[in-house]
């Protein structure tokens, strides 16, 4: 914790980790795609289109994962005042939003063949859409506030309010509509999908997760450097002022 609290230290670690992560992520995703397209059989009812799932499901998971990450970081900002927490949260938001978007797009592309329409107001799709909206809200707030300190704290508060609400929202939306097939991977009974699909799905899931972490580290590094530049400029301004005063 202490060692990580120091951004410089963090930068070093990140710099060392990034190449490895990159290689691992690309490798896994490559394998995953290979399995998905050439090994996994077409689904007996969903046909070839089922292959979309291998992108769709992991992105959907990571979209949720991203928000949880932000919420934890928010605690870090508000309670432990951890210098990196704010950076972590800010960096995670756009990435999570992107995965969320990918889940939505792949999902609706999938929907066209399955349901004959790009979008249905099914429970899970809807709650995913709401999650996307929550992401947009966070990003908009970060954009709207000039001062990094305030922006971080405000966004943290919003993120926490968001996580408190997400279960309620999910519940209400399910209550509103229970047409979509129930979650069949994450559920007490264990997976019910054909293993031949499960294997590539998990490879992809792990690959995407690594990709997420990779992007997150890169974004965090960028953010830290951006703030340092900002601080330096301010110091220059002050210095100039002192000289002329």
């Amino acid at each position: 914790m202490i060692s990580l609290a120091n951004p410089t230290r963090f930068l070093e670690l990140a710099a060392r980790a990034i190449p490895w992560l990159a290689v691992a992520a690309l490798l896994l995703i490559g394998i995953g795609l290979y399995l998905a397209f050439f090994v996994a059989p077409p689904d007996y009812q969903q046909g070839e289109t089922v292959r979309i799932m291998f992108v769709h499901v992991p992105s959907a998971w990571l979209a949720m994962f991203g928000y949880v990450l932000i919420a934890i970081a928010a605690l870090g900002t508000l309670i432990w005042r951890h210098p990196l927490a704010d950076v972590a949260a800010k960096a995670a938001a756009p990435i999570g939003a992107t995965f969320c978007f990918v889940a939505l797009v792949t999902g609706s592309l999938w929907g066209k063949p399955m349901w004959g329409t790009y979008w249905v107001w099914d429970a899970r799709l809807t709650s995913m859409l709401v999650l996307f909206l929550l992401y947009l809200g966070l990003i908009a707030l970060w954009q709207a506030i000039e001062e990094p300190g305030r922006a971080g704290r405000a966004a943290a508060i919003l993120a926490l309010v968001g996580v408190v609400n997400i279960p309620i929202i999910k519940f209400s939306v399910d209550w509103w509509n229970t047409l979509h097939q129930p979650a069949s991977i994450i559920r007490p009974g264990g997976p019910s999908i054909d293993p031949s699909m499960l294997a590539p799905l998990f490879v992809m899931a792990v690959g995407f997760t690594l990709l997420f972490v990779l992007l997150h580290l890169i974004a965090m590094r960028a953010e830290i450097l951006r703030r340092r530049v900002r601080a330096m400029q301010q110091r220059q301004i002050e210095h100039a002022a002192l000289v002329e005063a």
Partner: protein
Amino acid sequence: MQQTFGLAAHKLGCQRGGRTIFRDLSFELAPGQALLVSGPNGAGKTSLLRQIAGLLPLAAGELHLEGASPDHALPELCHYVGHLNAVKPSLSVGENLQFWSTFLGGAGADVRNALAAFGLAPLADLHAGLLSAGQKRRLALSRLVAAPRPIWLLDEPQTSLDAASLELLDAAIGAHLASGGIAVVASHTPLKSKFAHKLALGKERVR
């Protein structure tokens, strides 16, 4: 004035937006003493007052109240009159002050005297939105009298006051100090009231 306090600041530091505005600032005020904070624009006068009022976190050092029981929170003993007047245009002058008096824990009775203290009595029923700049300022200052509090934090109180009102302000501050109160005043232009301590901020800072 009910109870009197002393206020001491020890090695205060202030940061805004990552920039250090001032550091290692210390002073001690005994009951009945006043502090004049001066310094070029941007030196951090407002920031200091906001720190004492609990609006801005202390980047370093501490503030403490002498003669205060732990259940006394510093901000609740302070009157903060900043650059802004906290005047509601759609309430009458009297209503404005009445509210602040109750909210800041004054007895309703004080309101009339408070208005009188700054020569606003004749305007009591006027919509505050119609007041001129200086009249608004005086309305803000009358809070000080409407709810007795031991510590006054005044940020350029003279802004757009005419000569007559300056007299009134000096009188008010004098009375406050006489009754054992404390005042911290940020100002560029001199005031008649005598200040036990003077603090010149940011000689070297951005002008």
